[in-house]
């Protein structure tokens, strides 16, 4: 019988939540790495017992952890993320030129085919790869040295590479998203990159349809349809059907189109989920109601999903890496909040319940569907 394992990164440690395929009864294991910020955990799709975790601290810097037994035990891997060559500068908040400085790993993306290979998206924005299971790291410098990089600028959370998506039909093609530079695509395993921001409009930058400079919060791809991607931008929910060459807005009837997360039902490539957040100055859900919005039409038409979610006095946020879907049928949907709740829906979003409450603020949620 299948099982699911939910990997939760929080401001003060990691938690592993487990259930059988019914997804009704859960066990909670943790905190792992208590007291540390766990920006992201993600398992290898090739070897599900291999889980990587980004462990970071304003005091003690970056640690990379790896488990080879499904999270029971962990060992520290390599934590030297050294930019390759001259670091150059990017724009700082005041418009001045600021040298690239490594701060932390935001996102880990294991290879779809090689259990030893993993990518790390970091702040200040760059992409690193490891071919030895996270023991040593080297930069893929073509992204950070892109001709536009000197004009990139940080968002409020820092200038971070927070999202990476690998095309399962052609693993040399990969997408990354950087706040606040935008989306980039490589067709040669990271040797070269092109900005993929045509169609984005951002009123918070001097040129709203600039080549780069957009604050993309998250992109998602269904593996059966790799030319189509969905995006939650700072404001606006967007869609491309040509591999990022052109984007169009699909915010439709959403009550607000600011938000962080976006994900796709594992069994229905046109069923998309977002959690609208009031605004960029109010980082909490609207009207005290926690609502997931679902579109079954690939965007534009959205319905509020509320059953089992708090509908009064709720003022949480849901951060960019904090929603995920499992591969069961019906697909389970999971998300974590700044209030420390992790909610799950075993039926594609129709009903919800909290797997666990009162954890530290949730930074990331991933799920593994295990045989």
């Amino acid at each position, binding site marked *: 019988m299948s099982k699911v394992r939910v990997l939760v990164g929080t401001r003060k440690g990691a938690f592993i939540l487990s259930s059988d395929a019914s997804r009704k009864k859960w066990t909670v294991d943790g905190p792992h*790495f*208590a*007291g*540390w910020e766990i920006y992201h955990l993600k398992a290898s799709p090739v070897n599900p017992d291999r889980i990587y975790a980004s462990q970071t*601290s*304003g*005091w*003690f*810097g*970056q*640690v990379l952890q790896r488990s080879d037994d499904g999270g029971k035990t962990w060992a*520290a891997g390599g*934590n*030297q993320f*050294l930019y390759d060559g001259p670091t150059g500068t990017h724009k700082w908040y005041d418009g001045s030129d600021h040298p690239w400085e490594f701060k932390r790993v935001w996102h880990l993306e294991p290879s779809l085919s090689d259990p030893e290979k993993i990518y790390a998206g970091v702040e200040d924005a760059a992409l690193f790869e490891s071919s030895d299971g996270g023991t040593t790291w080297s930069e893929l410098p073509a992204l950070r040295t892109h001709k536009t990089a000197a004009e990139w600028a940080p968002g409020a959370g820092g200038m971070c590479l927070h999202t990476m998506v690998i095309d399962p039909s052609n693993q040399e093609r990969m997408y990354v998203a950087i706040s606040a530079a935008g989306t980039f695509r490589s067709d040669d395993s990271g040797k070269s990159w092109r900005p993929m921001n045509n169609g984005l409009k951002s009123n918070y930058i001097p040129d709203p349809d600039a080549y780069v400079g957009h604050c993309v919060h998250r992109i998602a791809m269904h593996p059966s349809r790799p030319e189509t991607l969905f995006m939650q931008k700072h404001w606006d929910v967007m869609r491309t059907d040509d591999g990022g060459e052109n984007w169009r807005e699909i915010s439709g009837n959403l009550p607000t189109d600011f938000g962080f997360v976006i994900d796709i039902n594992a069994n229905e490539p046109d069923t998309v989920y977002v959690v609208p957040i009031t605004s960029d100055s109010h980082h909490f859900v609207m009207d005290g109601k926690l609502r997931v919005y679902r579109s079954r039409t690939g965007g534009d038409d959205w319905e509020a999903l509320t059953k089992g979610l708090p509908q009064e006095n709720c003022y949480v946020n849901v951060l960019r890496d904090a929603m995920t879907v499992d591969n069961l049928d019906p697909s389970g949907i999971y998300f974590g909040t700044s209030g420390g709740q992790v909610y799950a829906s075993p039926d594609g979003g129709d009903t919800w319940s909290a797997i666990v409450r009162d954890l530290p603020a949730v930074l990331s949620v991933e799920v593994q569907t295990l045989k």
Partner: protein
Amino acid sequence: MIQVVLPKNLQILAGVGRVVEVPVSGVASQSSVLDALEASHPALLGTMRDAVTKKRRPMIRFFACEEDLSDESPDAPLPDEVVSGKEPLLIIGAIAGG
């Protein structure tokens, strides 16, 4: 043996208790103690000072004998009481926040 007291987070990371005994040959300084500590506990590499530049991380402090040694030269000899093992070298996560 130099007695080094680690903050809780680094104790967990390194899998050690509060006090770690560090053998140092030659002059005992912040640098030589940290070199030996990192060599015996590689998980600590980069957590107290930059792994390449060896510069102290901004929110790490080094105390001993009721003195703040953080801004002294990393190669300056440690106090005799620390060298003799009578007093520990305290590695502290700086107070931050409210």
